[in-house]
């Protein structure tokens, strides 16, 4: 039976079972999806914040902060048998929902720090749907490499 695996805010999930779907709802959070060119192994991390500023450790949330979150996901993929050179990424999220004058632009900083962390590990970003002012429901299909991105009011894109 294919599973629908919810990737909670601050957490990460990995699957190598074709048919499984990894899913999250993203506002200013960033979803980092990492795939393996050689097989179905697919993972997603649901990043909350660009970096630690108050010295509060991530606790059980391995993907709370962008840098450690990307690293933890890549480590998990390697433990599950992937080679780092075969990995590529897709990015979603990092929106700004309430316009210019309100909350800090955490989304934009999440995207920037996540990109930098992937660059440092030489993992290319092959597709992305980031920024803007709408939340996204992301569905990652294990095995096909397809990422379905839905916004409120049922429009849908595949990246």
């Amino acid at each position: 039976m294919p599973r629908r695996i919810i990737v909670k805010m601050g957490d990460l999930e990995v699957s190598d079972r074709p048919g499984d779907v990894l899913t999250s709802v993203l506002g200013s959070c960033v979803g980092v999806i990492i795939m393996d060119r050689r097989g179905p192994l697919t993972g997603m991390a649901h990043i909350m914040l660009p970096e630690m500023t108050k010295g509060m450790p991530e606790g059980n949330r391995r993907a709370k902060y962008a840098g450690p979150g990307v690293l933890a996901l890549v480590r998990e993929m390697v433990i599950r048998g992937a080679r780092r050179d075969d990995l590529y990424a897709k990015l979603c999220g990092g929106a700004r929902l309430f316009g210019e004058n309100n909350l800090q632009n955490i989304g934009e900083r999440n995207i920037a720090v996540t990109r930098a962390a992937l660059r440092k590990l030489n993992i290319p970003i092959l597709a992305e749907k980031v920024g803007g002012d709408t939340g996204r429901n992301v569905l990652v299909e294990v095995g096909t490499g397809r990422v379905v991105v839905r916004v409120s009011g049922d429009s849908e894109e595949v990246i």
Partner: protein
Amino acid sequence: MPEIILDEEEVDVLREIANIGSGHAAASMEKWLERDMLLDVPQAFLVPVEEVAEHIGDPLQTVICVYSRVSGEITGHLLYTLALEDAKVLLDILLEPEDRKWGFSPDNLSAIAETGNILFNAYLTAVSRISGLELYPGTPACAADMLEAVVNTVLLEICEGSEHTLVLETQFRGEGLSSVGYVLFLAENEALKRLVQRAEGE
């Protein structure tokens, strides 16, 4: 920095504060909508940050949401959320039929933002009065989006120092109507502790 945790007694005090704030907000809503309001007892739940949205409702449901930052002696966040069908009910009351187009038109969103503004002002006035803390609402901003996206985006502002968040939630109902929305008050645990201390006279 260790996590600051709220105990049961503090949660009770905060629920009572939310109750007073909501009562005041309901009174201003009665004037604004020109009809009687029914107020549910506020819910106070302490949950891991990543589970807040699912405690409030269906995470994928589209909601209209008004947000305002609370500043002053403590920082917090107020949200007024409405399901789409409840937003229609509210707009039927607020707007003349000829101005009443459906969709997220600027007129519709600004009528809902104004409703949020009235609720937030009344809520904070009451909270300020019982705590002696000076608190001001910011300019309200409005979004129509998935509940989880909206709630989590606001939670990012307070989650760094808190693994668990106290959610103070009040549902408003109009006489003869279903829900006319929820008001949520969110703040870092440190700020909430301060609010309790001041309300109890330190």
